[in-house]
């Protein structure tokens, strides 16, 4: 045994990431035939993200939309590419604050409707500065 032929590598502490590609770098033996059948793991993105470039996330704070299933701390998936039509739940920016409400759009007015009797609807008037930021498409909830 010639011990001087052994080379010791010290772990590189600089990288904390997992380095997946390493396993294929080892070429001893013959390649696993299973490699050809590798599929990428299921990702929840496939279900909830239909338009990657326009999708953003937000966290719910408060109970104003409890009736629609949006609880405090829930994660919202927002798609900005969708049209904010009547009855959609949308993230709005009104008078300096973000809020999530159900849209009520009629010929004459726009209302932001909460789904909790303890909260009041907001009637959008000309004095309000309203940006409909995006339409909520999914709620991710921790049970």
């Amino acid at each position: 045994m010639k011990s001087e032929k052994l080379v010791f590598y010290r772990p590189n502490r600089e990288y904390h990431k997992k380095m997946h590609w390493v396993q294929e770098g080892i070429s001893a033996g013959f390649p696993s035939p299973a490699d050809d059948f590798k599929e990428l793991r299921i990702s929840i993105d496939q279900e909830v993200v239909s338009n990657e470039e326009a999708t953003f996330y937000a966290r719910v704070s408060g109970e104003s939309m409890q009736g629609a299933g949006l609880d405090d701390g829930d994660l919202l998936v927002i798609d900005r590419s969708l049209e904010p039509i009547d009855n959609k739940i949308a993230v709005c920016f009104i008078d300096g604050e973000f809020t999530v409400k159900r849209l009520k759009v009629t010929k004459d007015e726009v209302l932001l409707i909460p789904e909790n009797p303890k909260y009041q609807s907001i009637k959008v008037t000309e004095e309000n500065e309203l940006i409909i930021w995006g339409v909520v498409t999914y709620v991710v909830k921790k049970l």
Partner: protein
Amino acid sequence: MFVLVDCNNFYASCERVFQPKWESKPVVILSNNDGCVIARSNEAKALNIPMGAPAFKYKQQFKQQGVKVFSSNYPLYGDMSNRVMTILEKYTPNLEIYSIDEAFLQFKGFDLFNLEQEGQRMRKQVRKWTGIPVSVGIAPTKALAKIANKIAKKFVNRTQGVYAIDTEKKRIKALQWTKIGDVWGVGRKHKIRLEAIGVCNALQFTQLPDAWVRKHMSVLGLRLKKDLSGVSSIQLEEIIPMKKGIATTRSFEGTITQFSDLEERISTFATSCAEKMRKQRSSCNALLVFVRSDPHKKGGFPYQNSCVLPLPYATNSSILLSKHAVTGLQKIFKKGVHYKKAGVMIMGLIPTEKRQLSIFQNNNNKHLTLMQSVDRIHKRFGPHRIKLANQDLNRTWKMKQEHLSQRFTTELNEIITIK
């Protein structure tokens, strides 16, 4: 035809998407360690806050005039840029990402098509999907598209953010309007030389004899003249150094699947960016690495991702940039993907002299000595030793970022909260 899409006040616009209350208010973004101003909104420009303004000197003015100050949030800007570019890519397979916030799109055989209308569509889509406002310039050559873009931006009320130089009359008018110093690729030296012989606008430049241009401004100058005359001479992926940002991106002839092959490419791109920066004596504050599979190929696993690496201090060292770029690639590389395109972009470009300024006027003495040591080691032992500094920097060096917004799109625990 070439279409140049440029994001308006990109960094400020990114911040405003997630904090809309700063819409139509003056906003500035500071370099690493909150040193100097690297980006301004139109309102801040109107207040005469110059680029590179040292933050500590302007603190009072910012406060008095209600200027909102942000530390640079490169992960956010990088992700938003990636979104914009991916949307634009859907319009044409010939897309050149020119910098973090601008891209050239080439349209071949679309002559029957109303490109101005298409430009409006792009502008609306990018704005709606990402919240980022863009301007669109359309012209038969790149240099003219650049000018068209400037017109679209400057006269947004009349142009609706889209302008096409598609007739000879419009071309002459646009060139007359463009000051020689504002022409793409005309630096300060050439500007002085040209003005000395009475060339003050771009039209006069195109009327110079070829021989003069070639003699004083080399072949590149001649190509610029032709481009401005309406004869396309500067092709996609051909890069003239510029002030705002630098990108090196390439589409591969085939596809790349191996990490090591991609690593080599990325490292080369980073080195090339660093060389360009050194040429124009600037340093960057962050870099972005991106990879994408062929979007136009059927079958195969579609994948695109990007990653931003804020640098501990502004630099233009090839080694440091290449090292960071490869670290970024490691984060986003996915096995089994056929990569078609990759690139490295640098962000937060500042003149190297300004960088010095911000280092030595930084009130944190720890940073100061650390930086000086880095420079000394660099000088004495050659650039390879910079690695030592790099390792330390990752662990102990914390940036001064007092006005940092959240990483709204890349960190789950930093997303917006909604009542």
